[in-house]
């Protein structure tokens, strides 16, 4: 009997938790499916009496989601490739090589992880401006590539598990450090690279403030900023705004359903370091 009550309680709370997570989202889907008139005459929780996909087309065109998608993809691909290259190189130097001031340099990387990103934009803005990167895709790309300490950490940690005897064998065969890095270490880092791609990919796709601050040009909108600017002219047309929000959420949902296991593991690896 007691066990039955415990089980009921357990599933009740789980279902309540899931409802809390889902209801705000489901309401957006319902709203996006309503026609303008249907929206005006029904409550948020009412099912649509009409069914239309016009809001999605409307949102997609008005928010210029096609160009946002292209911009986001370019920024994602370039910054992630850069992060991987820079991160693995830094990790190789830190883990496998000896050099002067090593402790100091590792300390610099560690300290940088603590600097809160958004506030330093006050001063970063001047640097980006001086470099002539303002209002171009290069600004977010450079910033995403340049400040990722977590990736370096993940790479160093993974590299530790690659036996040094492999490097030594290659050295005896006459390989220098660049060959060892390129031919031996880098290919073996694949699982760590997958982790970084996931963490970094989610972070960049969701990043709002950096593209908002550095790419005010309407043609340079990414998913976040296009959706944000979309709100201005439409004010209270929630059936269209909901459709816009859903268009931004759907790619995340697809990636999540496909890569669930990797995402859980990747985030656990990244978040606590």
């Amino acid at each position, binding site marked *: 009997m007691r066990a039955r009550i415990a089980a009921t309680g357990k*599933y009740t*709370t*789980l279902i309540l938790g*899931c409802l*809390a*997570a*889902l*209801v*705000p989202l489901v309401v*957006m889907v319902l709203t996006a499916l309503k026609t303008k008139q249907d929206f005006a005459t029904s*409550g*948020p*929780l009412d099912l649509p009496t009409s069914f239309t996909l016009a809001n999605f087309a409307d949102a997609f065109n008005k928010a210029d989601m096609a160009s946002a998608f292209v911009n986001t993809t370019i920024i994602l691909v370039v910054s992630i490739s850069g992060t991987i290259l*820079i*991160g693995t*190189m*830094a990790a190789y*130097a830190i*883990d496998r*090589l*000896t*050099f002067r001031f090593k402790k100091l340099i*590792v300390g*610099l990387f*560690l300290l*940088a992880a603590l600097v*809160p990103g*958004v*506030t*330093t934009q*006050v*001063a970063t803005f*001047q*640097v980006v401006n001086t*470099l002539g990167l303002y209002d171009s895709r290069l600004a977010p790309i450079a910033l995403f*590539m*340049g*400040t990722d300490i977590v990736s370096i950490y993940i790479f*160093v*940690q993974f590299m530790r598990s690659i036996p*040094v005897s492999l490097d030594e064998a290659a*050295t*005896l065969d006459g390989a*220098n450090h660049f060959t060892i890095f390129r031919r031996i270490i880098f290919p073996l880092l694949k699982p760590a690279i997958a982790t970084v791609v996931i963490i970094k990919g989610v972070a960049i*796709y*969701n990043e*709002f*403030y950096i593209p908002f601050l550095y790419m005010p040009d309407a043609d340079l909108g990414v*998913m*976040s900023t296009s*959706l944000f600017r979309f709100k201005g002219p439409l004010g209270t047309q*929630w059936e269209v*705004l*909901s459709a816009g929000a859903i268009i*931004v*959420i759907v790619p*995340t*949902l697809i990636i999540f359903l496909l890569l*669930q296991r990797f995402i859980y593991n990747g985030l656990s690896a990244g978040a*606590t370091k």
Partner: protein
Amino acid sequence: MTGLTQMVESRTNGSRLRRSRRTAVMPQKRRRGWAVTPWLFLILPLGFLLVFTYIPVMNMLWYSVTDWDGLSKTKEFVGLSNYGTFFSRPALFRVFFVSLYYIGASVVQMALALYFATILTFSTKFKNLFKGILFFPYLINGVAIAFVFLYFFQPGGTLDSLLGMIGMDGAKPQWLGNPDIVNFSLAGTSIWRYMGLNFVLFLGAIQSIPGGIYEAAELDGATRWQQFRYIIAPSIKPIISLSFILAISGSLAVFEIPFIMLQGANGSATFVIQTVNEAFKFNKVGLASAMAVILLLIILIITWVQRRLIPDEEVNLT
């Protein structure tokens, strides 16, 4: 991250051994001192680190003692007066109190995460489905979340309709319009967004406890509560403390949701919103830099306290 330092140290010792071995094999290849190769590997990472982290931080320290407006060619040195301004103007200083709502929210958030992580550890139907649904909000784009909750909280929106459904039709407060309520609404949104991350981290930590221990405890007659109290809680203490410290520095750095939803209006401005507004809206780069420096110092202190309080070792059950 102290792990990294330790790891690097042990690695350094290891490679010293290796080097002596290698020196024996190829004496001509190892030169002490300024070997070029490591710096070729480091030049890009270090370059980015200096240009996009350390130069801004240095500049920020310098701007914070000037009256710079971000545009003019000249900067007047004004000593610590920007810091004085921040602490003496209640309108600025009150943003610290907004953080308290988010610190409160993170306590609730972690309690919920711990509860769900614990009950999902024991055999449950549809475990992966529950896990996925509870976690998914964490992955959603911040602007989309802001839209979802603007609609959720607006008059006659989702929340009001839900309350109507359970018969609470009475006075419907302005969830986002009333300065006394707005921060509760936004802190609630923050729980909705971040609970999933804590939950998955806790679940991972709990699942790394060997399952046999529960069986042994059950044979000894331990209840579920006792299993939680004496097995689960002690072994995930490190991750709980770490999450709590991260939650506190996170609460001070809250930005996205209140900025996107309300641009900091109705008393929802947080420390970071106030800082970027001073810098980019009111062109007070000097004052904004001083605020950024204050936040940086607070976060460094919190991290230092964390290092002192929480030893970097794992609890070992076996």
